């Protein structure tokens, strides 16, 4: 009889484990999400992360061991950001006509997200280094880490805040838009998507892409605009 403990120790140490586990868990989470009619609370990123984190803890697998395999999926974030040019190019005529409106919205929206976070954190007596790590939370995680480091925040915390901000937006935007009575015409979808990309970066954009093509395209524009604006402006302001 084979020694299963030995087999597990071997398997959990190969890159194959992290890669396969991520893909399988995500596929199950995605299947459930689709069956539940894309309900925001069934967000596939959230559930995949919860299941994987619990599995790693129970199986005694260290995060770096897991990441040795999962990095192959993580790596595709780069080309995916480049690929955001495609939905944008398809809508180039409209975007060119609206560019200043979108720029104003990205500036004001980004400022509202970061500014309200800083003001609230200050009012609640949160220490300065944690407060500074909150500033770039609407930029995508790797960018947020870089900005936080520049202004005196903690990069690891900035990544945590960025991921949580993405999840909060992806999971609650639908209900918030219903309360605010944002309509579901093409213009309404574009506004919904643009706001998700602005306040909740890639995870918000992923949600927008799943729900509506127009929302997805505008989320992509907003995401790139936010990355550029935050990289340029935050180090100047803080």
């Amino acid at each position, binding site marked *: 009889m084979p020694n299963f403990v030995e087999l597990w120790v071997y398997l959990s140490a190969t890159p194959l484990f992290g890669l396969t586990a*991520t*893909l399988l868990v995500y596929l199950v989470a995605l299947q459930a999400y689709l069956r539940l009619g894309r309900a925001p609370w069934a*967000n*596939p*990123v959230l559930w*995949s*992360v*919860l299941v994987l984190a619990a599995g790693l803890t129970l199986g005694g697998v260290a*995060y770096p061991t897991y990441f040795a395999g999962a*990095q192959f999926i*993580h790596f*595709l974030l*780069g*080309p995916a*950001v*480049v*690929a955001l*040019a*495609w*939905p944008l*190019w398809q809508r180039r005529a409209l975007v060119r*006509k*609206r560019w200043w*409106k979108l720029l104003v*919205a990205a500036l*004001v*929206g980004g400022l*509202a*997200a970061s500014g*309200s*976070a800083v003001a609230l*954190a200050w009012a*609640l*007596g*949160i*220490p300065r280094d*944690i407060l500074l790590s909150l500033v770039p*939370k609407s930029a995508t995680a790797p960018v947020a880490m*870089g900005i936080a480091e520049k202004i005196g925040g903690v990069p690891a915390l900035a*990544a*945590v*805040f960025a*991921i*949580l*901000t993405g999840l*909060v937006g992806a999971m*609650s*935007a639908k209900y*918030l838009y219903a309360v*605010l009575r*944002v*309509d579901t015409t093409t*213009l309404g979808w574009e*506004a919904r998507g643009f706001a998700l990309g*602005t306040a909740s970066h*890639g*995870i918000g954009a992923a949600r927008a*892409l799943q729900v509506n093509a127009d929302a*997805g395209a*505008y989320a992509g524009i907003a995401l790139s605009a936010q990355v550029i604006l935050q990289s340029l402006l935050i180090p100047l302001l803080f």
Partner: protein
Amino acid sequence: MQTLTGLAWLLGLQAAGELLARALRLPFPGPVVGMLLLLVALNAGVVRAAVAACADFLLAHLSLLFVPVAVGVMSYLPLLGVFGGRLALVLVLSTWIGLAVTALLVRHLMGKDDAELR
């Protein structure tokens, strides 16, 4: 074949973006520069045909790509320590404020856009 050529374009432009960002000391990341380069390159029909299939595939599964780094984030949660509750409040409220301000502003500005067209 087309999808693979598309991936080659995406990776090539990302690499070009990384190089440009470093050489010119741009404050934003390589993939964003790569995205701007692709925006220009898409005007060529050859690029368009190849990139379309690959880009649609990658973007359809964008949320999967965040899973590995998000799993790592979970191990940092204890770091939030005594501030956990207050930070949760800050994150939720500021995200809602960001979403609401942006959505209403875009809707308002674009509503005017429609009026201009008429």
